[in-house]
């Protein structure tokens, strides 16, 4: 099967004007923090990901966008090394899975901690330094300073002595980001960090992540089912639909022709008051097939229909 995303990435256009992206456009391997190459995943007889490939450079903020069931979490697990791909490979800093965990800071979507759990923000961040090692960590001034400066860096210095289980969702996000960053990873990966946040907290977390990417020269990968909160800060986008991915500068990917090709049926990309809406279906009621461009048979898969069935409730279906 020919890799569809290479077709879409083949037009090397300059980044949109509002993205002051310092990174070079050359595909030189040394600068790639993350390189996902032709990754396919089959789970329980179902193909979750097919031939997904993209690259992320240091200092870039990349949005991994897709509706529920598009394969975002599976892709995250593959990147973390928790799920072996059926085909393809993932390189972190140009290396194949050697001590990958140390190079990736991860913030999971699901984080539930009992309000009484005796774990302060500073304790959780300290576990980010060497939580995988056996034995105790002897308290030292250096550790304390590292933890406190990391908490201050994410705007959570005042939360250091609070129990993590009693923090709000946005506060927990900051502490988890500090936990993920304190080991100085090359890649910071966050699974749906905005899913459980109210709008103002979400904006703050997004601004924080953008600043971290640009100032710390860390590659930041954020998965989200909604791209709009990330649009102001996103350097690149990896758009997942039906297990396939299109990736590139946001402006080049979030276009009707590219996304229609990806979904295997016609979608419109509407700009409404600065927001982007990806709309499928037109006036037909749910029949995606009628709108499918379908030029490339390999792209007309069944998954987009499954996606549509999950969220579609009317004739105009907002995908993202």
């Amino acid at each position, binding site marked *: 099967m020919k890799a569809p995303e290479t077709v879409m990435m083949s037009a090397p256009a300059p980044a949109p004007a509002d993205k002051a992206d310092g990174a070079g456009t050359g595909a030189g391997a040394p600068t790639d923090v993350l390189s996902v190459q032709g990754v396919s995943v089959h789970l329980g007889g179902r193909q979750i990901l097919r031939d997904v490939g993209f690259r992320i450079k240091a200092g870039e903020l990349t949005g991994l966008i897709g509706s529920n069931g598009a394969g975002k979490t599976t892709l995250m697990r593959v990147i973390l090394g928790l799920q072996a791909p059926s085909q393809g490979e993932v390189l972190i800093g140009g290396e194949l899975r050697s001590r990958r965990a140390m190079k990736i800071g991860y913030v999971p979507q699901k984080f539930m901690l009992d309000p009484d759990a*005796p774990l302060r923000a500073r304790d959780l961040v300290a576990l980010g330094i060497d*939580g995988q090692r056996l034995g*105790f960590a002897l308290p030292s001034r250096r550790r304390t300073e590292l933890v406190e400066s990391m908490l201050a860096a994410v705007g959570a210095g005042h939360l250091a002595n609070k129990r993590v289980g009693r923090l709000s969702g946005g506060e927990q996000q900051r502490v988890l980001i500090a936990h993920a960053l304190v080991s100085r990873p090359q890649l910071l990966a966050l699974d749906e960090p905005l899913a459980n946040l109210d709008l103002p907290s979400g904006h*703050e977390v997004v601004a924080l992540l953008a600043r971290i990417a640009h100032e710390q020269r860390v590659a930041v990968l954020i998965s989200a089912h909604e791209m709009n909160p990330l649009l102001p800060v996103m350097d690149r986008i990896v758009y997942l639909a039906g297990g396939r991915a299109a990736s590139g500068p946001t402006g080049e990917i979030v276009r009707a022709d590219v996304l229609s090709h990806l979904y295997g049926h016609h979608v419109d990309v509407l700009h409404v008051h600065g927001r982007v809406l990806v709309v499928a279906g037109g006036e037909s009621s749910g029949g995606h097939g009628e709108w499918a461009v379908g030029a490339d048979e390999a792209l007309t898969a069944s998954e987009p229909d499954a996606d549509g069935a999950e969220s579609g409730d009317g004739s105009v279906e907002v995908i993202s």
Partner: protein
Amino acid sequence: MSAAAGFAPLAPASLIAPGFFSSDAVYTALIIGVLVAIVAGVVGTFTVLRGQSFAGHAFGDLGSTGGSGAYLVGVGPLWGFVVAGIAAAAAMEAIGVQRARGRDLATGIVLGAGLGLAALFLYLDTTATSTSGAAVTILFGSIFAVPASTVPVVVLLAVISLALTALLYRPLMLSSASPELAAARGVPVRTVGALFLVVLALTVALTAITIGSILSTALLIGPAAAALRLTRSPRAALASSAAIGVGTVVIGIVLAYDSNTWPPAGHAWPVSFFIVTLVLIAYLASGVPAHLRRRRDSREARGGAEVPSVGGETASAVSTVVR
């Protein structure tokens, strides 16, 4: 026994009945009780944090089977508790492989079968020895009846449990807080969990010898649950959990010894009763400051604990962290 204790219950000197410090049984009971309370306090904190209180209780129930079986073949009940605990840990790990839906059922069926076996063993114990002491000792404990020869084994098991907990400390804490975070950092979450089950089984064996297999959960969970309401850092929680456990065991032993002089005189009340009751009192009392703190915290939260903006001054902090 002197009647002085009855007349001046508030004077500490007379609260401790005469003969307390010269009794070998008391001496053994104090050594075992304090040691077990420390282990139970530490391991119990992780048990509560991981939400595995039920597993702890299951170990206690199946301990009844092991303890009564050991009695039948003529070895100390502690060995029965240990063997049953390890076997139960292996069974739980095997059951855990399957889907979560079947887990409750399997656990319930295994527990029921185990207790049924315990009923048979206890029946055989009492008919073989023509006393009813075995059942009470195994199920409800009798720390004064533990022979001094058991002390070295208790010390060994306590050291193993504490050493394993110390060795696993960081990965255990991380995977208890979030299995996802731990897995992403390369922690073998499953192995850590299995090793902790072994530690838990050994600890329950120790608490079972102290206050009986049926009551063992109280000493494991109670002090830890109280400590979690009083503290916010891991070290403080572990230390206060152990301290509360030691306190309840020591006071329980003192009261039980003293109860020999209580009416009806000449019959000491079961020490397990005192320990378990004191654990309950400690747990209830721990709720008071926690409740007050929660009220204060919520007042603080309302009082405008504004999340600071992602502004310029934090930006400079980022660049200092990055080097």
